[in-house]
């Protein structure tokens, strides 16, 4: 009898500390991995030198007069209720009415890429913009369509210069635009001037306030000042806020066992952090993830060459920028063409891409293009095999990067 009691006591004492230690041990391992992965707290990432212009930036962000000859504003596609994207696969540009699905189905011109969320853009360390990185400040040699005539040294301000001159995204192809379609500094300056004149006509008070705050004459306001104001609003509105993950890392609060396991998979077996690292959970580099193509694609006929369209380097074919993971629970659908509806499928696309496509429904060209994607895939070799329950655990971990 005594022997039995002793045995159970020893067994109980053996179990208890082991259990406590394992949770604690996992937390320590995960915290260390997160910090080693380049994590920085949200507060330390927010930098906004022109915050006083944010309120004017908000007016312009929501103004349809940012579109020179159509009726699209930045907020048409970057909608708060959709986590700063628009909830549809490809963006709906000029020519439709309403937002999101309604806009697309009402005949809007399709912009053949998925709208990226804005969370954390313009904050410290965020240097590569758009799916194909057409604004790339990550190297000493800046890449943008402005060549050596960069409008600003601030990558976000430079990026705000781009959508307003994109035909079908915010511009109708009228006589003025057709005559200014050639890529040259002079024609670009004329278009930006016309946009500012349009804003001066319809948003006069806002432009006056911008001039006042900057301390310049009303007539001296240029598109650079407009873009700086809009960038300031984007920085402020879409800054990364406190998350459960931040509480875990900086204030040593605990995670649930599922979140913990998911984190260990994210940094361990899944090798997700090999690309989703750094302060924004993106290395801001370019990879081929075999997401199926939806829509006609940037290159037409259902083809999108991704980064290649910017660099013309064949090694960059089908590569797209690693997206940030903040608030990704709110920015579905996923992938460069928004062809993947859930985070679950999105993770599966990295290591088991055939499980999420119905290859029999593809036409011969789609199949051919998809084989190319698969053959160039960077992720199938990087991400280890994960079971379905492990994928769900990773999603549990990703949820702690969401915030309101």
């Amino acid at each position, binding site marked *: 009898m005594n022997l039995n009691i002793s045995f159970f006591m020893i067994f109980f004492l053996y179990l208890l500390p082991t259990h406590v230690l394992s949770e604690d041990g996992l937390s320590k391992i995960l915290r260390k991995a997160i910090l080693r992965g380049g994590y920085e707290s949200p507060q330390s990432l927010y930098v906004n030198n022109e915050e006083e212009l944010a309120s004017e930036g908000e007016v312009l962000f929501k103004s349809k007069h940012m579109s020179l000859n159509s009726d699209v504003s930045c907020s048409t596609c970057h909608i708060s209720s959709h986590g700063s994207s628009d*909830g*549809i*696969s490809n963006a709906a540009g000029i020519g439709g009415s309403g937002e999101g699905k309604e806009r697309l189905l009402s005949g809007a011109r399709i912009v053949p890429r998925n709208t990226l969320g804005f969370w954390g853009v313009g904050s410290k360390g965020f240097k590569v913009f758009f799916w194909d990185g057409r604004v790339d400040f990550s190297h000493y040699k800046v890449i943008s369509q402005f060549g050596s005539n960069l409008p600003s040294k601030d990558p976000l301000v430079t990026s705000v210069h781009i959508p307003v001159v994109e035909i079908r995204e915010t511009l109708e192809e009228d006589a003025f635009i057709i005559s200014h379609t050639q890529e040259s500094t002079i024609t670009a300056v004329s278009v930006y001037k016309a946009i500012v004149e349009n804003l001066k006509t319809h948003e006069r008070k806002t432009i006056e306030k911008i001039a006042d705050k900057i301390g310049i004459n009303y007539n001296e306001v240029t598109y650079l000042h407009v873009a700086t104001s809009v960038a300031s609003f984007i920085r402020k509105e879409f800054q990364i806020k406190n998350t459960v993950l931040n509480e875990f890392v900086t204030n040593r609060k605990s995670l649930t066992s599922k979140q913990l396991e998911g984190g260990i998979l994210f940094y361990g077996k899944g090798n997700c952090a090999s690309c989703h690292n750094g302060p924004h959970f993106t290395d801001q580099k370019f990879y081929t993830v075999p997401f199926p193509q*939806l*829509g*006609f694609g940037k290159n037409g*006929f259902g083809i999108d060459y991704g980064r290649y369209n910017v660099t013309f*380097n064949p090694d960059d*074919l089908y590569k797209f920028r690693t997206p940030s993971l903040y608030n990704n629970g709110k920015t579905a659908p996923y992938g460069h063409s928004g062809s993947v*509806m859930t985070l679950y499928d999105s993770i599966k696309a990295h290591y088991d891409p055939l499980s999420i496509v119905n290859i029999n429904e593809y036409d011969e060209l789609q199949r051919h293009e998809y084989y190319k994607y698969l053959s160039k895939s960077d992720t199938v070799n990087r991400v280890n095999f994960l079971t379905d329950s492990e994928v769900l655990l990773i999603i549990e971990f990703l949820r702690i990067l969401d915030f309101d």
Partner: protein
Amino acid sequence: MKNRILISLNILACVCCIALAIKFIAMPIAAKIIYANQYKTLMFQCDNVMRDHMIAKNRVKHERSKKSIKDLESAEIGLISCHYYDKLRKKMLIWGLTEHDLSNIGLEAIEKNSYDLKKYVEYHEFKY
């Protein structure tokens, strides 16, 4: 005699009208019905080989090797597909279609998959 001349002129006018109608209405419509699909296919094929050629050219620029040069040579021969596209394009212009008509047919081909997208979006809408 006068009546004969009038009848002849009437017939001539009718023939002219019919000829004009054939030239400017019937032929373009017929060209569109007969050749539009073939035009879309050839347009895609030309676009495809041109893109392949461009990629092969850029490959040589970035990584000059025997293989990349051979690939470029093949891609150059592949450009012959554009000859068939060009021939059909001219034929359709002769049949009375305008550049604008051809651009529209081309755009339909390029954006063929936008229909799939709309169908897809109808089924999957995200609300938060």
